[in-house]
């Protein structure tokens, strides 16, 4: 029998609120705001309060899926990335660079976001870069 809390940072947006994930017998059972966190000072938004719910949700994707003949099929990361790259190349050749947009995420680090915009501008040749908060 074990109940513990694990201090971590909410991954939903760029605010970085301090949260405790509540763990009962190895299972994630809840979220509490960290009251002494210097950023969030014990407050959370509705997403933060419920962040434990997505971790073990049955709807969560755990493997890449490729859609073929209207059906999603599990694929390896190599297959999925090769498929995406070939499709992007084809779209760029047929419709030009600005027919492609890149959406980044507040869940990523600053460095990862930098890399994505670099990929967009230097490889695909477009300034169409935005992020998940404006989806």
């Amino acid at each position, binding site marked *: *029998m*074990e*109940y*513990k*809390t694990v*201090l971590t940072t909410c991954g939903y947006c760029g605010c970085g609120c*301090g949260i*405790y994930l*509540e763990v*009962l*017998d190895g299972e994630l*059972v*809840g979220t*509490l*705001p*960290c*009251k*002494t*966190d210097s950023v*969030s000072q*014990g*407050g*959370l*938004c*509705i997403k*933060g*309060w419920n962040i434990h719910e997505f971790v073990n949700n049955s709807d969560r994707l755990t493997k890449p899926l490729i859609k073929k003949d209207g059906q999603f099929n599990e694929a390896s990361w190599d297959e999925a990335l090769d498929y995406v790259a070939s499709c992007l190349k084809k779209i760029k050749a047929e419709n030009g660079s600005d027919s492609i947009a890149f959406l980044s995420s507040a869940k990523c680090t600053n460095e990862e976001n930098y890399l994505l915009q670099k990929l967009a501008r230097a490889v695909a040749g477009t300034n169409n870069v935005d992020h998940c908060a404006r989806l």
Partner: protein
Amino acid sequence: MLEKVKELLRAGEISGFIGLRLQNGHPAPHMFTKDHLDDLGSLLVGDVRYPLNKTLLKVANQYPELIFGVMVRGCDERGLIELFKWNQLKRDRVVPIGVACPQGLAEACECYKPYPAQWLVGEKTEGISKSKRLQKVEAMSQKERLNYWLDEFNKCIKCYGCRDVCPMCFCEVCSLEDRNFILTGKLPPENPTFHLSRAVHMVGRCIDCGLCEEACPSSIPVRTLYKKVNEIVKDYFDYKTGESSEGKSPLNILGEVTLELSDVNK
């Protein structure tokens, strides 16, 4: 407290103690067990409060036959008394370990009884019977007061933090999530329906711990609102929430009751 908890765990009188520990430089809720007595080195009382009774509910629901210890302040003890009455916890399955709040905390809370029946930590300080924050709002004219609350409720981002942190919110189905009643995808939520509904549901439940207000990212003074609820419950129903194991809370009384709201036009 450390020695008492160690003794209870060693003797097997309790299977776990729910309290706070210093972890990563922050106070954090934790359950101490006999198998990990070394953890008690990080046991903490401090001034930062978490809904420990809510943690107790989670653990006790999983292990209904076991006895647990829990750190209680005056408010937490009021909470336990009500949770027993509302059949959420069993009286003989909980061993409270008391803490008397320091004067600063008691004043910040305007707590009328900042100590439990028995305590091992702290000194008894006088309770505060009159809430200045409530008096300030009541000094306003009815129109001013209405505008004050409407403005405050307008700040709500509907995080449900006041409900989620509340150690007395244990319902499986919550009216505040009823889509016919509170529309989804709209901010602020229905004003004042959303907040006044919660206030009504706090009748006989709110033990004035103030965790709701501390959890509010918009700094809405919900504690003042619930202090008023408690005052009404006391004045009209002669019921002080969490004070005694006797008596039923007003919403548990079936039958006809007629009330005269004498100050309704004040």
